[in-house]
């Protein structure tokens, strides 16, 4: 049995960050990655990337470049009157005036209110500590409010509400606590790259993280799927791989969801029946699908002011409808999704013919059912729905599509053996310690589900490493 100081399970953003942080502190770290390529879910625009990570791990020196910074949030409307929400408050207000004079006049104030709340919530993300008690009253109220009601409370225009509702997509807009997600997103933007979202040039984010990990001295092992954890007297002592090989380490970091880690890897060790049942229940029935369209030329996309995160949703009720059907295991009639167009890019993946220039459209469709009840071919249906909706905006899209790549949520679940944890307003206000630690000594969670609300920030990996280094070594 070979030994090291720490094992990190999962080669996604958080896994790489945790491994690098540990290695930089002088630990011998082994990163176990189940698949071949690394980088996990890093193809998304990064609105929440932790700037400390960029600085500490010197990601820019390892090749991280951005094709777009400060991407505005653009709500696409069928009538061509798109909603553009950018950092420029005045420009946004001017744009909103088309939809509602009241919203336009109010925008500055609303933005200020939102950011004031976000400043209070920021500590949940930024510090290891909790929310300052003086402001809890306001945040508690949001914890009981649905995002839909919150938006109705503040805005008049359907178009604006539908666009903003995307930020709360993790919970149904009728669910109590989903209003907190809107503030949460603002808080992340505030702490993140100090702007709206940024789109990394293709693969440079994952590449930079891998390079940083390598530079820090992390041993990366691909195709090493973990079968279970080895435990002695309630503490983790190592892992066993699918191949039967065992690795010993006093510290194990898992990027899998809490349920998958504790139930599948740790076999429910240290949990009583109630906790076990609770974990089984929290597994979400809905997920997100990533769809990558590869195009041979730039499609005609008229009337859109520049690049940004594009949201396709008729109104905020369509999020609720999508949630309801996804939970019942059906594909939403009218999918809501976000897409970005990173522009020209080098060919991606192995399935692509090696040609010089490709355009791509990256779509994130949420919520979709994890496992459709009617047994439809989920992947092709997802792609067909997305393309049909996009075609209304880009009439010549179909002529240019040369490749479609769908990552359905069900595939991820089958891989992890457990779904992501469902959205829970309580988790948002809980402190990092409770999200990162487990009942098993030496076992830490550092995946997206340890984050207050799922987003790629690398924060979970960093905090888990920090806490472990501080208290348990």
């Amino acid at each position, binding site marked *: 049995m070979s030994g090291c100081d720490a094992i990190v399970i999962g080669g996604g953003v958080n896994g790489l960050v945790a491994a690098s942080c540990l290695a930089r502190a002088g630990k011998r770290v082994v990163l176990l990655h189940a698949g071949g390529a690394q980088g996990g879910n890093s193809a998304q625009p990064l609105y929440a990337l932790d700037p400390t990570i960029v600085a500490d791990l010197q990601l820019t020196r390892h090749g991280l470049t951005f094709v777009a910074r400060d991407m505005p949030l653009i709500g696409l409307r069928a009538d061509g009157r798109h909603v553009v929400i950018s950092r420029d408050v005045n420009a946004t207000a001017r744009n909103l005036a088309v939809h509602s004079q009241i919203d336009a006049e109010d925008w500055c104030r609303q933005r200020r209110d939102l950011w004031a709340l976000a400043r209070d919530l920021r500590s949940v993300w930024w510090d290891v500590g909790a929310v300052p008690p003086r402001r809890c009253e306001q945040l508690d109220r949001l914890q009981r409010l649905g995002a839909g009601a919150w938006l109705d409370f503040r805005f008049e225009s359907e178009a604006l509400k539908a666009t903003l509702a995307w930020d709360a997509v993790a919970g149904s807009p009728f*669910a*109590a606590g*989903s209003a907190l997600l809107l503030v949460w997103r603002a808080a992340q933007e505030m702490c993140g790259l100090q702007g709206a979202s940024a789109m990394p040039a293709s693969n440079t984010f994952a590449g930079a993280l891998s390079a940083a990990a390598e530079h820090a001295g992390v041993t990366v092992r691909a195709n090493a799927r973990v079968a279970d954890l080895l435990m002695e007297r309630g503490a983790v002592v190592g892992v066993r791989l699918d191949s039967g090989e065992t690795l010993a380490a006093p510290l194990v970091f898992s990027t899998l969801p809490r349920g998958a880690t504790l139930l599948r890897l740790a076999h429910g060790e240290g949990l009583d029946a109630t906790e076990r049942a609770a974990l089984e229940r929290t597994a979400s029935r809905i997920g997100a699908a990533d769809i990558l369209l590869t195009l041979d030329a730039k499609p005609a996309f008229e009337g859109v002011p520049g690049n940004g995160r594009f949201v396709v949703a008729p109104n905020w009720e369509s999020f609720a409808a999508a949630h309801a059907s996804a939970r019942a295991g059906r594909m939403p009639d009218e999918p809501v999704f976000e897409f970005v167009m990173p522009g020209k890019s080098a060919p991606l993946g192995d399935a692509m013919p090696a040609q010089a220039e490709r355009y791509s459209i990256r779509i994130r469709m949420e919520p979709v059912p994890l496992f459709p009840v009617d047994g439809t071919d989920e992947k092709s249906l997802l792609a067909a729905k997305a393309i049909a909706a996009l075609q209304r905006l880009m009439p010549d899209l179909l002529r240019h599509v040369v490749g479609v790549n769908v990552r359905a949520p069900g595939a991820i679940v089958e891989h992890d053996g457990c779904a992501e944890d469902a959205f829970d307003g309580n988790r948002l206000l809980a402190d990092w310690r409770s999200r990162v630690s487990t009942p098993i000594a030496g076992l830490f969670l550092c995946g997206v589900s340890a984050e207050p609300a799922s987003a790629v920030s690398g924060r979970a990996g960093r905090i888990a490493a920090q806490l472990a280094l501080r208290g348990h070594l």
Partner: protein
Amino acid sequence: MRYDAAIIGAGANGLAAATALARAGLTAIVIERSDRAGGRLSTREFHPGFRASPFLDELAPIPQDIFWSLGLAQRGADLMPAPVSLALWPDRLNLLRAGGQSGAAALLALSAALAAEALAHALGEAERQPQKRLFFRPQPMPWPGVEAMLPSLNEILMRRDLDPDTAAHVAAIALSGRAADPFLPGGGVHLLAPGAGMGGMVAGGFGKLADALVRAARDAGAQIVYGLDASGIAHANDRLTGVTLADGSFVAARAVISTLDLKRTFLSLFSRNELPVPVARQVDNFRMAGSTARVLFAIERAPAMATAEALRGPIYVSPDLEGFAAASMSWRAGRIAPKLPVTLRIPSLMDPSLAVPGGAVMTATFGAVPHRPADGAWTREMRDVLRDMALGALESVMPGMAGRVSAAEIIVPGDMEDAFGTTAGDLWGGEIAADQMLDLRPWPDCPRTLLKGLYLGGSSAAAGPLATCAAGIAAARAVSADLKRGKLS
């Protein structure tokens, strides 16, 4: 004469408030728009020889101390405890005995206890002096029940390890007549606002309770005037001076308790430009939407049912969590779902005087019925759809019964709005949701409002959905406390 308190609306809350104030030695007048007291507590003849309570079959409980302090028992009101309830699926049924030993009964008992605790807190808050905003405001005491209601109803049921049938049965009890999605976080709050099967019935119909409340108020020395419509609240220099009536007369009062719902209080008694912007916003954003429809059936020659104890309580037809979720979605979109949750009752089994000898009165209560359908107004055909659904449910419980129905009356949310004036026919005075309950209903200083001297004492107030009469009592206590402190001139 200048009254200490004028109360708008002679429903259960208004009458209870008047009684409490008069008992405290204050002069109180109740102003009622219609020519009878009771509001939704009414029993009327809907077919010759057949009587029913058109709006409800069961009352949120009246807390014991309030019931006895108002002296309702001595004045002829006889509350009957909740009977067994029956949940019925096409192929099986589930019986739930109130106060039994099962996990479901324990959950209902716990919810009732939490609601009682929350109510005690609300009554305490009403008497407490509102705190001034100085440099900082001390952290308010958290309300009991706030933590318990944050998860979804489904989550709460699963935590109790109930079998699926019993869980669906409890959900049907909590959601009867409502339009809520049991899977949405925050839905646990429905257990705090008692639904059917958690409250009580009144022997002789709800009209009897209304009569007892009127007698209690009269005996205490409160004045009740009928047929007068309050049209406005008069105020000068941020202080309230009285109530103006539709006929042009004026009732001077030091305090006014409105038992109208929040929207009607502020939108019909004030003109829009009188309202400060934050109040107007809060009133606008308070969600009120009717979700209940009722069908009353008169059955001339009913088969013998007297021995069937299980039929005395509510009978839930096809209650299943997914069904509630689907119905709720349709309701939000302004449509009637193909399958609505139904609660059937046979009030004449409990109270034979409601029907002609040998006959029976049955009621069907639907949840998730939109107040205003997306495609326009309520039509004759849509009402008939409801009637046929009710007949179908009836037939599934007692085959052959549908053929014996001799008359049916259909009551949709709009009818309820017309009958007793609650906005959009909302029976709970505002959607039951996590952000509209307890300390946030409708705002933290309830029953006080921003206008000094105006109090909310109806179902939109914090205590409103928790128990019958409670919101009126809370408002009355706030008024007496403020008068005693000299807060009202």
